């Protein structure tokens, strides 16, 4: 499909990253797609908020995520590549559908769990890893956006902790139900190899085998993401032995 939002302009030649530009192109495409999906999710969330302040907050987040997508597109231009995005790619589409089911149930807490705990854990961890190895402004952009996403999580944590304090068992059951739905898809995306065919975001063949060329690996990105997720669940107060079981039961 066509990119949801074309924030690319004419590519600007860049020689320093030319060798690995196709790899960065796909990394940027995944990141940009994730940001646009987040923007859509926050926009949807604003529609079920009753409190005007919450509506404004959700819309502000949506705008922020669109800004992140634009930043990734701009980084692509600097290295001379056109960064595609595809929120209808099979994995991303399933994640969006899971979020929309929470919206249909007008379940604000479930929406926060999916977006802030699950998707943002993945974003914060993977952007941080990319930020460490990507050269120049590319690395700086990933690191900056990782830090901004972490601020989102902090904001949501206080709401979710208060919700858990009301009924921990009910809350944990809800997180587990959403975990099975959402984290299963994320685990498939993060698998070392794409076993179900092309992800529909990479511009050519799967980027994962090439990640070693830019000092990354699919195993590292998956490990860091799951670690961030477990730590976030710990901060919510969900028993560690429970979340360990959940994570080890994910597909690989």
């Amino acid at each position, binding site marked *: 499909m066509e990119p949801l939002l074309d924030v690319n302009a004419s590519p600007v030649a860049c020689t320093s990253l030319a060798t690995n530009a196709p790899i960065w192109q796909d990394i940027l495409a995944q990141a940009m797609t994730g940001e646009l999906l987040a923007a859509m999710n926050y926009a949807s969330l604003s529609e079920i908020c009753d409190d005007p302040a919450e509506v404004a907050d959700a819309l502000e987040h949506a705008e922020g995520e669109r800004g992140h997508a634009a930043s990734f597109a701009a980084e692509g231009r600097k290295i001379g590549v056109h960064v595609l995005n595809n929120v209808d790619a099979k994995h991303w589409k399933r994640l969006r559908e899971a979020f929309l089911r929470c919206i249909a149930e007008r379940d604000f807490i479930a929406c926060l769990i999916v977006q802030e705990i699950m998707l943002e854990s993945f974003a914060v961890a993977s952007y941080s890893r990319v930020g460490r190895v990507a050269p120049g402004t590319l690395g700086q952009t990933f690191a900056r956006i990782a830090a901004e996403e972490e601020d989102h999580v902090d904001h949501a944590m206080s709401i979710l902790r208060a919700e858990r304090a009301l009924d921990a068992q009910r809350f944990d059951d809800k997180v587990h139900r959403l975990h099975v739905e959402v984290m299963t898809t994320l685990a498939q995306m993060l698998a*070392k190899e794409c076993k179900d065919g092309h992800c529909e975001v990479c511009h050519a063949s799967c980027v994962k085998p090439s990640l070693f060329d830019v000092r990354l690996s699919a*195993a590292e990105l*998956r*490990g*860091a993401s*799951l*670690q961030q997720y*477990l*730590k976030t669940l*710990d901060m919510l107060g969900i*028993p*560690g*032995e429970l*979340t*360990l*079981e959940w*994570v*080890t*039961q994910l597909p*690989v």
Partner: protein
Amino acid sequence: MDVDFALIGHQESWRAAADLVAVLRGPVRAPLPDDEIKDILPWIPPRAVCHVDIRSTAGATARGVYIDSFIPPDRLEAAYVHENIARVRGAAASAIKAGAKIVSLGGFSSILIEGNFDQLPERRDTVFTTGNTLTVAFIVQGIHAMCDLEGRNLRTSTLLVVGATGDVGSGCVRCLAPFVKRVLLSARNGERLRKLAAELKSKGIQVDIATNLEQFSSAADIVICAASLASPSLLPYRISSGAIVCDAGYPKNLCRSAETPDARIFFGGLGQITGGMKFAPDFGGILNRHPFPDVVHGCLLEGMALALEGRFEPFSQGRGFITPERVEAMESIAARHGIYLAPLYNADGPVQDPLHCQTASSTAGVGEPSREYFANSPS
């Protein structure tokens, strides 16, 4: 729910780690391939894995939690020391969060922390013990048991302790040196060696020290390896034919070699809780990988014994404070609750026949510890 005690450990091998993950995945899901285990495990933050219920033969019960630091089995070397200390700190934080009144550090965790207790997280109602005093007790008991088994006389023996200046090594030296003919002490730190030797010489004990085993002029017929040896082939130096060798290091990796075909090796420092122990979920066959039931490292058993005794105190801390009197006190506490020396074994299997094991382990009968308590307990 608050717990009486917490045990901090990690898996000794990738096989053990894979078995742990297989139990967590449940019977329906296929076990993860080894390469996936090796990729995933290092990323898991320290956390509780299961509850542990124990029972004293005197009737007391205690509930604990096993916390795995998820130190990867192939990252025990010095290069990973900071990472591993951070993992033990994280595990300690989990123990505090679980409300444990006393925390026992597993053998390798103790080595990392014994000189750095100030690196543990702030805590108010939780005390930590390295558990080294009970480890020393079981090593010393094991040496006596092996001497009995092999018909050796301790008084005419030369004792070599490798890793002699560590907490466990120096504790063993203090307990056994007065009862042997001569002591050979080996460690990397020459200054600490000289200090320990001076202490022993002031008591009339014959002592030789060396930072390299090849430097000793005499051979030992009883050996305690309290240092983890990267290569067991270091051992042939200065070891008599048929020497009794206690593998008290971590991980336990000594086995007979072409150079030491007659060595009588046993894994030291292990005890058995004869009142029974139960894991929930059931990790029994995973967390106890010894050939006998309810066998645990002495360092972990110390916290359990203190919990059963209701003595929530940091019994073992720091390095070099283990004395024969402290060892005796800890042995008494453990014995009151049916915690005894485990049947001796090595990489080839048990070194005692089952009948002898039962006698050595006193009340419960090794191999068939009491199950009454667990039969009546909720799962």
